[in-house]
């Protein structure tokens, strides 16, 4: 019930401000443009390049969606209201996460038009990699948002929160490149943390349970840390 209250409030806030609309509009504009360019250039009914690009654009867009979630509560002192109400930090964090994730899902659903277009004009469209790619994209979104929520919990400044999210996610995106440089166990270990490496496998049509679990653990870990950060206010 209280989680729903937070969720509803956050969704209201997204749509009361222009931020959500602007993120939606620019994301769809760029993705639509890429779809067209890639399709005309390659003349192949393949959604992989689009899904790959969409994941990177969402990496840039998600800090904008998450940056204010907790920072703004800190800045305006409404955090004092939440923390003195009979609601736990876990409920606060989950409610906020779900609100942002729901928004993300809407964004993803809006891109379903592209496979639909391909389906209309192409014969024998290979649905496997498209579906697995979308599963990957959704899991990736949960990871982005959980990390962004954590970044938002540590500062009252939205810009810092956004930069922290952007920097952190980008690092997790490209950390797999180490495997080309470090030909040892460390290089291998780091590449396993890479969001890009894991996501690429979904694009190839593989839904590997290890990768699914990785994204879930990544998400839960950052949500947990965000909860602890909020709780720590009370015993610091």
């Amino acid at each position, binding site marked *: 019930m209280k989680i729903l209250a937070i969720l509803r409030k956050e969704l209201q806030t997204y749509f009361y401000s222009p931020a959500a609309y602007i993120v939606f509009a620019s994301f769809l504009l760029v993705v639509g443009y890429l779809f067209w360019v890639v399709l005309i250039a390659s003349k192949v009914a393949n959604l992989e390049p689009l899904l790959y690009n969409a994941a990177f654009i969402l990496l840039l867009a998600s800090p904008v969606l998450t940056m204010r979630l907790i920072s703004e509560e800190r800045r305006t*002192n409404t955090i*004092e209201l939440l923390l003195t*109400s009979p609601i736990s930090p876990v409920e606060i964090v989950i409610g906020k996460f779900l609100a942002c994730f729901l928004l993300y899902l809407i964004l993803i659903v809006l891109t379903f038009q592209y496979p639909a277009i391909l389906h209309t004009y192409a014969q024998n469209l290979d649905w496997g990699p498209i579906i697995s790619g979308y599963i990957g994209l959704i899991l990736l979104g949960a990871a982005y948002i959980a990390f962004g929520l954590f970044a938002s919990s540590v500062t009252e400044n939205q810009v810092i929160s956004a930069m922290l999210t952007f920097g952190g996610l980008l690092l997790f995106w490209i950390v797999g490149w180490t495997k080309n440089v470090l030909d040892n166990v460390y290089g291998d270990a780091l590449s396993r943390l890479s969001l890009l490496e894991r996501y690429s496998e979904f694009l190839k049509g593989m839904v590997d349970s290890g990768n699914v679990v990785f994204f879930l653990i990544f998400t839960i870990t950052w949500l947990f840390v965000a909860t602890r950060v909020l709780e720590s206010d009370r015993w610091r």
Partner: protein
Amino acid sequence: MIEVQNVTKYYGNFRALDNISFSVAKGEVLGLLGPNGAGKTTAMRILTCFLPATSGTATVAGYDVFEDSLEVRRRLGYLPETPPLYPEMTVKSYLRFIADIREVPAKLQRERIDKVVVRTGLGDHLDRVIGTLSKGFRQRVGLAQALLHDPEVLILDEPTVGLDPNQIIEIRGLIQDLAADHTVILSTHILPEVSMTCKRVVIINEGRIVAVDTVENLEGKSGQASRYKICLKPVGLDWKSTIESVPGARVEHERVDGELVRFDLALPPEGGYEAVFKAVVAKGHVFTEITPARASLEEVFLRLTRTEEGAAGAERKVAA
């Protein structure tokens, strides 16, 4: 209802509260009084479970604010110094959100919201976006938020700050109303507010309690010579020497007003008004007015917070 025992709070090396203890009985309105930065807000934040005490314990309705924080928070209504509002929400959606997170049962929500809206005079503003409201109305929304779940204990941090005189009177009236069935702690640095709304006062200065007493006692207990404003119809010229023959009694600010004399009678702390009045009457002079001039709360406050200043200030810097 509220017990605070030996609570000390440090921010780093700064001691914000130094071993404070007080208690509030059920149904009482307690004023927390002190200059800015005295530790009023810190004390309230500890009671509302927003900040932990460095040492000492505090309980609300029998629950420890640290161990049973959830139970405490269920019983509290809290209005922080700046009302915690979401500027982009409407008053209605804000109150509905509060009702949800304060665990007001879904069936009762409409009724509770209607009730606080009437009580705080927000009726015509339900569909306004909070960001467009004036400061006075924001304060009312903040108060509505604190009352919504009908809490046993209300903690109000400077509830009348930033309001115009009419609004201040309204809010004070509201607080007096609430006192009937709530336990209230309110902080302020405005003294008349305390004498109007509170029965008992805790005066804090630089993190220490310098006085806990009823408003009446504090006003009476000025410690200075008690004073009377007197108007006398003298029968001779010896009235002044008659009065000053009583040890410690002095006549000040005397002026003649027709056949009357008006003056202030200053007496030593141990009193002595009986001896003075008897001696004056024995000589045949007639009193036409006797007004006891009690020290105002302002004077008590200034005296209490100033005498502490030097010693406490020096000590606080040493503390680590």
